[in-house]
């Protein structure tokens, strides 16, 4: 049996996990006792990390679509076909784009960026989850100088106060939930803000119940207490932060509950406090403001750059930060030779490009508008899929280039707290599948003659010499120990504080709020969908609710006179839908949450918004 240490492919926490393989095939996983992040612990998903690659429907042979049918091809033929076709689209001045991935390695994403910027000479490169996280990264970054997390999970564990804006931390980031529990066990004050009083909320000293997307209201309540304190004024004077007066002015009329005063007092009085932020149902503008408001709260209480204190942005996917930092985002942030033309995001790319390269992702299962994504993709003139799993996207592709899964390849990923770690191969790629970096390097070489990479380490060397955060790192140096952190450089000179925001949505006509649950829904992710143990819950739920579902609290269900599985009519100013209800004990009254996997059934009610005021009636 071969046992190989790698980095967990699920959330952004960056846990270490051993993969076990026999005769080139995965057979199981094992925890790593000394790994600095996981410290011997694994969540349910990590424990099933080997399953999807073993049981999943894998892409094993290059495919080229001929006369409407995907036919097997040899590698040189397939790569040549893709390169020639892409080149002809570029030559014809047609738009092309690349969708990179948060489940890919840094090396694969780097080559994806090179393919887009240098090979295809376009700024249209993106990853599907960016839209959900950009507001958070941007809002926090406004205050921290571009750093998504200034604290670690260990800081959470030893903090005196933790303020958590969450969806459901135990589900989205179990390892982070552990740190919070340890903090509470030690006597720390946990303050939770959210539409659901989840497990974390039940352990909290104070829970601020809000409507989905209105988390900013609770944050502003606390912030209004803090912003006018003499301590905040002296911190602002000392550090030169900007924007305090504006916040104080706009929050001057904010009504504050007893709980809000208590929370403000705990935060201000704590020696160490950590502010943890997860995506919510807030629209992008509010989400961004919420993020900057939270980080401002840390700044105004002196916790922004204090040892053991800080802000943590919870990232949902293992290499989301890597994709962000390596500029797999529209436009040019670093390097590259964009033609200055199109700089489309993932969603617009589907509509506006003629040729699209999708790497290790399945846009219809990740983007908010399922139906639109699938339809738009089916109309593409030329769709290339580079992936390990058979997805809807792969089925539509004109060319499929099969690559190794996370447990079959070498590279690095960057966890949400900035730890750059190795991904190592424990098993062999199936069939004719090759390493993703090799396939992408081949494409880059074809599109940009002279640009060759002989090894995955060489790709990383180029990252290290191009992206400041990775300076000085190499595969060889990461091989020892547990990875490395770069030195995050502050961008921008002045810290600009901001208040949180929450658009008022409800009205007498539409008294409740229907919102897309901000909690990362793993049900559609190939690593869960193809894993027998991990997929059971989501399969069962889909089977139980084939016509969609919304979650409501018991009280609202009683008021509506409905029980689990009964249908209600949900109506917004955009449209209406009839869906079944699922009762949740922990949800705030007035809130209806739509799990991400079920978003298609209420698309007409939401019409692209993440939260909308609705009227609900029993049918």
């Amino acid at each position: 049996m071969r046992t190989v240490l790698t980095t967990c492919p699920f959330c952004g926490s960056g846990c270490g996990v051993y993969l076990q393989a026999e005769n080139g095939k995965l057979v199981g996983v094992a925890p790593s006792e000394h790994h600095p992040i996981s410290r011997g612990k694994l969540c349910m998903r990590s424990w099933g990390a080997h399953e999807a690659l073993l049981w999943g429907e894998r892409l094993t042979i290059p495919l080229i679509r001929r006369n409407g049918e995907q036919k097997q091809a040899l590698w040189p033929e397939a790569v040549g076909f893709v390169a020639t076709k892409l080149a002809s689209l570029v030559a014809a001045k047609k738009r092309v784009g690349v969708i990179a991935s948060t489940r890919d390695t840094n090396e694969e994403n780097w080559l994806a960026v090179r393919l887009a910027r240098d090979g295809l000479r376009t700024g249209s490169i993106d990853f599907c989850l960016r839209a959900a996280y950009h507001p958070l990264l941007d809002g926090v970054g406004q205050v921290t100088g571009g750093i998504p997390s200034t604290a670690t999970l260990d800081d959470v564990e030893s903090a005196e106060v933790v303020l958590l804006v969450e969806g459901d931390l135990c589900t989205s980031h179990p390892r982070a939930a552990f740190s919070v529990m340890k903090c509470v066990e030690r006597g720390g004050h946990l303050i939770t803000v959210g539409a659901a009083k989840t497990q974390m909320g039940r352990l909290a000293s104070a829970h601020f119940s809000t409507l989905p997307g209105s988390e900013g209201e609770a944050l502003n309540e606390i912030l209004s207490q803090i912003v006018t304190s003499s301590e905040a004024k002296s911190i602002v004077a000392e550090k030169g932060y900007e924007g305090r007066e504006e916040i104080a002015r706009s929050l001057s009329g904010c009504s504050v509950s007893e709980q809000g005063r208590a929370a403000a007092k705990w935060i201000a009085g704590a020696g160490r406090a950590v502010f943890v932020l997860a995506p919510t149902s807030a629209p992008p503008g509010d989400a961004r403001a919420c993020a900057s408001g939270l980080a401002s709260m840390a700044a105004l209480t002196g916790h922004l750059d204090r040892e053991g204190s800080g802000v943590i942005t919870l990232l949902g996917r293992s290499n989301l930060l890597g994709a962000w930092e390596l500029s797999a985002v529209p436009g040019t942030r670093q390097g590259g030779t964009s033609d200055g033309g199109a700089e489309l995001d993932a969603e617009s790319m589907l509509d506006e490009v003629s040729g699209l390269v999708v790497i290790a992702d399945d846009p219809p299962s990740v983007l908010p508008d399922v139906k639109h994504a699938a339809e738009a993709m089916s109309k593409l003139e030329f769709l290339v899929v580079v992936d390990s799993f058979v997805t809807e996207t792969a089925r539509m592709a004109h060319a499929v280039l099969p690559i190794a899964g996370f447990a079959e390849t070498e590279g690095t990923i960057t966890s949400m707290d900035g730890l750059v770690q190795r991904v190592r191969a424990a098993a062999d790629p199936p069939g004719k599948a090759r390493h993703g970096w090799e396939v992408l390097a081949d494409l880059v070489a074809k599109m940009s003659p002279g640009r060759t990479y002989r090894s995955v380490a060489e790709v990383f060397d180029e990252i290290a010499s191009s992206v400041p955060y990775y300076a000085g790192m190499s595969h060889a140096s990461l091989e020892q120990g547990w990875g490395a952190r770069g030195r995050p450089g502050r961008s921008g000179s002045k810290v600009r504080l901001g208040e949180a925001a929450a658009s008022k949505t409800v009205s007498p006509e539409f008294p409740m709020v229907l919102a897309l649950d901000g909690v990362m829904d793993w049900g559609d992710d190939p690593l869960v969908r193809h894993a027998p143990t991990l997929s059971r819950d989501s399969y069962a739920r889909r089977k139980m609710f084939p016509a969609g579902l919304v979650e409501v609290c018991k009280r609202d269900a009683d008021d509506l006179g409905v029980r689990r599985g009964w249908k209600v009519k949900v109506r917004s100013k955009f449209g209406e839908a009839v869906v079944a209800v699922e009762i949740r004990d922990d949800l705030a009254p007035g809130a209806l949450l739509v799990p991400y996997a079920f978003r298609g059934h209420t698309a007409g009610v939401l019409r692209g918004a993440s939260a909308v005021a609705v009227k609900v009636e029993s049918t």
Partner: protein
Amino acid sequence: MKNGEDMVQDGAKTIARQDVGKWVAKLMERAEVITPVAGHGGDVMYSRVSSPDDVMFDFANTLLPPKQFVLPQTDPLVRIRRDAGGFKVEPAYDERRRVLFNVRSCDARSISFLTKMHTMDLVDDVFRKRAENVTVVSLTCNIPCPLGFCTCTDSGPFLKDGYDVQLTLLPDRILVETGSEKGVALVAQGGDLMRPAAGTDVDQRKLLEEVARGSMGKETCHFASAMRRVSTGRVEEDLWVRMSDWCVECGGCNLVCPTCYCFSVKDLRDGDGWLRCRTWDSCQYAAFTMEASGHNPRERRKDRMKRRFFHKVSAQYFQRDGMVGCVGCGRCVKVCLGTTDVPAVVGAIRKGAWNG
């Protein structure tokens, strides 16, 4: 058991430290020798050794128990092939001869427990064939591990039975005791390297056991009083409710537990046929008990926790199995992604209070 009297066998042998490699080399001629080896950055894990030099005697116990060598995480049970007019099904036996070398006392005890569980009623042939070909060489714990509580479960730091061979590190040599026919055969492979143990060797072993028992860490687990409460329905429902908020359902406690054997069955594509595999599962996962109708008899986590501890510590199972479902290894304390490890929950049941 305070007194080590009558626990050292008459036929005990000794082997010099420097000769162990030669013995292991002989074992390697006939079997895969699997032993704790150094992993990444101080981690220790079981692995097949390619050289006798890889065998360690000074190590903290592995985080993943050697359970997988009798009950693999992905365990092929039967091969299914298409046949003229139907399917051909044949058992997938794994009859590799393996020696698990330097297995800690708790883990050796767990393997005999698992063997009992899989052979006592309906015999599980796949398990039996694999286990029959595994010989367990246990290593007593002169210095008990900090989180272990094996004295509470009668599974260490020294064993009186349940091993094939038991080694004890004496100051200048190794005491070799045998506990089964397989063990005797394994020791015989050592030939002249094995010498009859002297009375002083036996005395030293008794002394070491006493010292080890006396130095057990602070972790204790009062199973008897917890068992009384669990078995007589004297655990408040609210206690389970409150405790279940401190569990994130990672399943780690089950998966690293040397005595847990919950499983699922799933067919794995294998060439043009299938391998029907038994896979490790956790009774703490919501979907574990879900029925095909969608109904889940243990939908709430507190009910699953309750079920787990009923199985682990109730009198009903103690009477049937002869032991609690725990060997006191302390692994669940290390892997718990919440605060509901076995000592914590057993303590809470006993006291009727949860202070999490």
